[in-house]
């Protein structure tokens, strides 16, 4: 499809700018609108847990700093898992730490999300042949988003937060609370 034919793209053919295609009204429309609003609030306030096990943690700290300011998106750190929405697994997880990660995840209040940050959390990374390293944090907790890099730059983590917001936007809160989403 060319640009001229696409109503969503601004082009000489539709100089007024992108046109909004009106949604068909169906019985769940109000609930969808409500979900839209709820999701907008939820995704604008992602509080992440202060949890870092390796060098990715340094990048995580950077991301809260002036250059890539996560607070712009309403994402601030909380020290307590009870109050946080997002578990950023930043770094290598050893078998000894795996229990703790699982516990921290279990202590978080629903709805909760997990981002595996960096190669080590994704697949064990540099240390996957080691006797003590969990090869991928998805073996112990459900992961919503994999963020590659060794370690990922703060910009990448910023992008991950934005992607997580996109993911949250498509969810239904009630279903998520029941653990179905």
């Amino acid at each position: 499809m060319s640009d001229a034919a696409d109503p969503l793209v601004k082009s000489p053919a539709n100089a007024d700018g992108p046109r909004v295609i009106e949604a068909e009204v169906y019985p769940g429309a109000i609930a969808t609108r409500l979900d839209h609003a709820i999701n907008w609030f939820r995704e604008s306030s992602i509080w992440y847990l202060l949890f870092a096990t390796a060098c990715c943690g340094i990048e995580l700290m950077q991301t809260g700093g002036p250059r890539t300011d996560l607070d712009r998106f309403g994402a601030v750190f909380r020290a307590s898992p009870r109050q946080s929405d997002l578990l950023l697994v930043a770094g290598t997880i050893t078998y000894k730490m795996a229990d703790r990660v699982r516990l921290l995840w279990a202590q978080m209040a629903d709805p909760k999300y997990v981002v595996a940050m960096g190669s080590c959390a994704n697949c064990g990374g540099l240390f996957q042949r080691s006797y003590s390293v969990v090869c991928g944090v998805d073996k112990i907790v459900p992961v919503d988003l994999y963020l590659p890099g060794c370690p990922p730059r703060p910009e990448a983590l910023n992008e991950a937060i934005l992607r997580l917001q996109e993911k949250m936007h498509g969810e239904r809160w009630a279903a998520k609370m029941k653990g179905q989403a």
Partner: protein
Amino acid sequence: MNVVQHAADRFMRWAFSVDPATWPHAWIVYAGFILLAAVLAVGFVALFAGPVTWLERRVAGRIMSRIGPNRVGPQGVLQWLADGIKCFLKEDLVPEGADRTLFRIAPYFVFGGMFGAFVVLPFGVHLVAADLNVGLLYILAVTSLVVVGLLMAGWASNSKWALFGGVRSAAQLVSYEIPSAFSLMAVILFAGTMSMQGVVAAQGGWPWDWFLFRNPFLFAAFFLYFTAAIAEGNRTPFDLPEAESELVAGYNVEYSGMRYLFFMFAEWANLWIMSAVATVCFLGGWQIPGVSPAEVAAAEGLAFVGWQALSFLVFAAKASALILVVVQLRWTVPRLRIDQLMFTCWKYLVPLSFVCILGVLALMVVVREGGTVDMILRAALLIFGFWAVVEYARRIRRTYLADKALYERMEGKAMWYPPYRMP
């Protein structure tokens, strides 16, 4: 005068044409009006506490060379709504092994203690729920309920961090209540009344009529009260009950969602309470410069409403200025150690507040009100206070300009926000 009762009486005469003193159903209307006043106060706290969290995060961002929340609403002003609604939608966890009943009711104690203070806080000439003749004593007493709530939260959580945090905050709040109460005692002695409206009425609209500049010992008492009140509000540099590096999150470590929100709500409400009490006791309260209270009280109809609104604006402006200072302090000063905290209270603040009381009494006896010595003292205090405010503004401007110059040198373009926008 009890304002709520007065309003209810007028309403009954107007709506039902009955005499409220003899009408048997008057209590229903009274109850309704009390409920209305409470709802108004809760609404005010909510509408105040929310935007101030946003303001604080923006100021923090400015101090840390960041931007702060700017995505939800214009410049992020609706960030508090997002945080609040998200917290309400989170799961309400009660940890295993916790004392379920105590765990659930503790936030209400904290909130109730804070909210109780709003009964006597005056917002304007007649804008006060009840002008108790022991108003200041009542505020000191009812905010002590917070200690019970914090200890309850710490104990019921069945977590060592929460218990440490609860016990620490109990120790801190009980200690710092003494200097704050004694520095307010100096005001009570000077004004000769404990009623909040009475203390305001004893002052004037212009800065030289404020208690702050009336007596050198009251000037000192203001800073003692301010320091002690920051400590009572668990704010940096005295936020030891919530020190992340030592205690994870202190007494609220096991709280999630709505109940955590209640704790935060109480903390921000306390910010208003401490600023409002300092404004009432030292900064002239709602007194409009150049207008006497008698003139305001005599006004009727639309003029009455206008004066009320103006007095509220004056009061809110003074309190907001204090709040801004507290917020800046929080992001500038490092946290104290627990022994330094107790040291500060018992070895400096408590003796100094006693000195303030004695000094105020001595000056009241020795120096004649309106005499030459009194006038010289007041003029000197006023000049000093004026200089302090100018210096404060000058320093902030200097830091801002230095920051701006540095940014422009590094990036080769103008800073991302013009100076008229929020920090």
